[in-house]
């Protein structure tokens, strides 16, 4: 029981928030995707998604690149290597907690 509680306390708080967890899990399975894809899959509003992405970028877990697809602006998102290793660690800790 104590070990499990310890595992819970070790969960990364940046990833553990439900919205951000959803974003990181979706980004984990892809090489890169755009803002529109995350908006569609998470069903968040643009403001919420932007603030979560800003928090993840600040922690160094997500790389955000502003680019163009033809003449249309596009925001590309990908997990950094730190983000990938932290998410793998998060999953391991979560499994250890139950």
């Amino acid at each position: 029981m104590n070990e499990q509680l310890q595992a819970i306390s070790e969960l990364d708080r940046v990833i553990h928030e439900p919205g951000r967890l959803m974003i990181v899990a979706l980004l984990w399975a892809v090489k890169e995707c755009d803002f529109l894809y995350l908006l569609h899959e998470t069903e968040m509003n643009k403001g919420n998604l932007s603030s979560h992405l800003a928090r993840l970028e600040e922690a160094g877990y997500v790389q955000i690149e502003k680019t163009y697809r033809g003449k249309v602006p596009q925001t590309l998102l990908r997990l950094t290597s730190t983000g990938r290793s932290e998410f793998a660690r998060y999953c391991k800790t979560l499994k250890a907690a139950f």
Partner: protein
Amino acid sequence: MSKALLTYSGLRCKLVCMNNKLHTYMTRPERYANIDGTGEMIFGLMLLGFALAGYLEASLPGSASKWARVAVIYLGLILVLGLGYWVRRGIKKRITWPRTGYVAYPRGGKSWWLPRVRIFATLVFGLSLAFAVGIARWRHLISMGNARVDGLTVFSVVMYGCWVSRMGKENWWKWLVWFFMILGVVTIALMVPGDFNNWDRPPVLLMGLLWLGSGTVTLYSYIRHTKPSNPETE
């Protein structure tokens, strides 16, 4: 103000639910690849390519050389697969990405051994199958052409079943297509005069048309339920 304490079993239940949700999120991008039905269309076109190659080969005169037959088969396949590639690219670029977003998938994984194990397993399976077919042919149990068509038909029926089971409840109508697929193959087998070994290209043609049709209906439904977004506010 009342404070509800989370019991140990409640906490455990919450964590298990969270883990399950996490798994669902991680598998979602994989399903997104066929949200517009392009995956089914490609497979349908590939089967139609096989059927086309078979019909082209059958239309050649009996005196045609072995190399001419092989060239005709490859020409049919390359034409259809090339068409499939451009159709998929066009749909993704003009319809899917502006509506529900762009996704690039990783090529392979970080682990070096998994692709090698897959290749090895495929080689072992392919060689075993070739050996079994060779023995059966040597003993005059089957002819090579029929083995190819039977294998392809069974493979496409099983694959469509696996495909539908992964698509989720929202695409329940695909089970009807699957049922119709099996029914169609059985009907063709019963309608062809003579024994079971006499049937040839029609099952592959039917499979190809059904896969392509299923993909087209998925695309139509996707277009109906989504609309292009305004990218300026990203």
